[in-house]
């Protein structure tokens, strides 16, 4: 039996492009599941594909002391969705570095549910969006800290850059905490390119388009700093930015 088709009344599908999702829903109705065993490490880099619609739904169980690092670039021309449900057992460590890069009328979103189940887990989510045209980029990130998950340390950092008045960034960090000795931080900002940075770059000789591209590259590329091999995702991000900046 497949899961029922989602509706926008469900918070986690609120900003989704359901029309784009419908024809491909069968493939994605059941999330992939994977388990990272005690003390093991896992790294995954997800690149955008050629598809207009690219959906990823993954459940990850991190057992005691396991580590996972996920790098994802969402840059579908129509609808891109990366959905992660992560549970952290005692001492587990989860890091997500994600970018939504979109133009036209595309919708790209990162939706996470990070569940700290065991004590002393750590999670870091860093999301950067660059949006032009009438594109939408969203981050819906829920962090749950279970009753016994003392000493949890969770952070969400979300920033979006809007290059056009028609572009939309949605950003919703959410915390549900049932333990009393935890550290959960989140920060979000939506802005435009800094006028002084642009002038500085132009006064050194960069034409306006190159200056914008360089500043946006700086905004996004820091995400891949801790990846073992960032060449492919870095190049894909540059390519996506070139399309977005035009």
């Amino acid at each position, binding site marked *: 039996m497949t899961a029922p088709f989602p509706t926008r009344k469900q918070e986690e599908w609120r900003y989704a492009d359901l029309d784009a999702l419908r024809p491909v829903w069968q493939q994605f109705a059941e999330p992939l599941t994977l388990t990272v065993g005690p003390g093991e490490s896992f790294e995954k880099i997800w690149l955008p594909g050629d598809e207009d619609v690219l959906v990823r739904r993954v459940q990850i169980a991190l057992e005691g002391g396991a580590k996972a690092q996920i790098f994802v670039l969402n840059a579908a021309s129509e609808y891109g969705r990366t959905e992660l449900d992560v549970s952290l057992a005692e001492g587990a460590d989860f890091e997500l570095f994600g970018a939504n890069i979109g133009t036209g009328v595309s919708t790209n979103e990162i939706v996470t549910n990070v569940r700290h189940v065991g004590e002393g887990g750590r999670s870091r989510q860093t999301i950067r969006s660059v949006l032009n045209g009438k594109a939408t980029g969203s981050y819906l990130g829920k962090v749950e800290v279970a009753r016994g998950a003392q000493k949890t340390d969770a952070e969400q950092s979300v920033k979006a850059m809007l290059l056009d008045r028609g572009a939309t960034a949605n950003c919703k960090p959410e915390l549900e905490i049932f333990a009393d000795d935890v550290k959960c931080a989140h920060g979000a900002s939506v802005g435009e390119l800094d006028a002084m940075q642009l*002038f*500085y770059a132009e*006064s050194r*000789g960069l034409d306006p388009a190159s200056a914008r591209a360089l*500043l946006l590259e700086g905004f996004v590329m820091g995400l891949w700093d801790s990846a073992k091999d960032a060449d492919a995702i870095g190049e894909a991000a540059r390519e996506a930015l070139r399309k977005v900046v035009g």
Partner: protein
Amino acid sequence: MLTIKNLHATVADKPILNGVSLDVPAGEVHAIMGPNGSGKSTLAYVLAGRPGYAVSEGGATFDGRDLLAMEPHERAAAGLFLGFQYPVEIPGVSMLQFVREALNTQRRARGEAELSGAEFIKLAREQAKLLGMDAEMLKRPVNVGFSGGEKKRAEMVQMGIMQPKFAVLDETDSGLDIDALKSVGAGINRIMRSPDKGVLLITHYQRLLDYVEPDKVHVLNAGRIVRSGGPELAKELEREGYAEAAA
């Protein structure tokens, strides 16, 4: 080389420059001194083309070309360099990448060949060394985490790499300790003291002028040049203050 005629400029509709006229021929260094709010930085920004700095009257030519008709990047390609009073931080972009892209864009605009990665790194390392800057800093994001003095040194390293024809240096001496002041002063002389180059040195104090001796000193007050003279004028200002000297 740089000729400014009766330049009036406003910022947010407020008049700041009220008729500045100035001629810096090739081979000369001119200092502009003046109290806070006299329009020194505005003059620098107008010359470099900062958006929001509107010229309402008068003009400026650079090597015979209408400077104010050019976009900021075109001014850079023409050989104008602005050393910022507050160099701007650009996270996520390394110094090396920033300066290399800027230089190569300039070179393309002038119809010159671009520098390869290896050529550029060699040049950047040489210039960093000459300015006493650790070459490792070139790998760091532009000005991020640099101290005030390191930022000013980094500006001079950029100037050394770009070899402009004309530099407008806006309070490059502020925030420098004595050692840094010496090396920055020596850098300005080494990079810019040449019969075919010119410098407009904007400063509050005499102390940088001990290392970079100006050919002329101008006093800016309320958006106008109220006095001009030789290097001795800077010493007089230092002794007597702007109120006396500019009266």
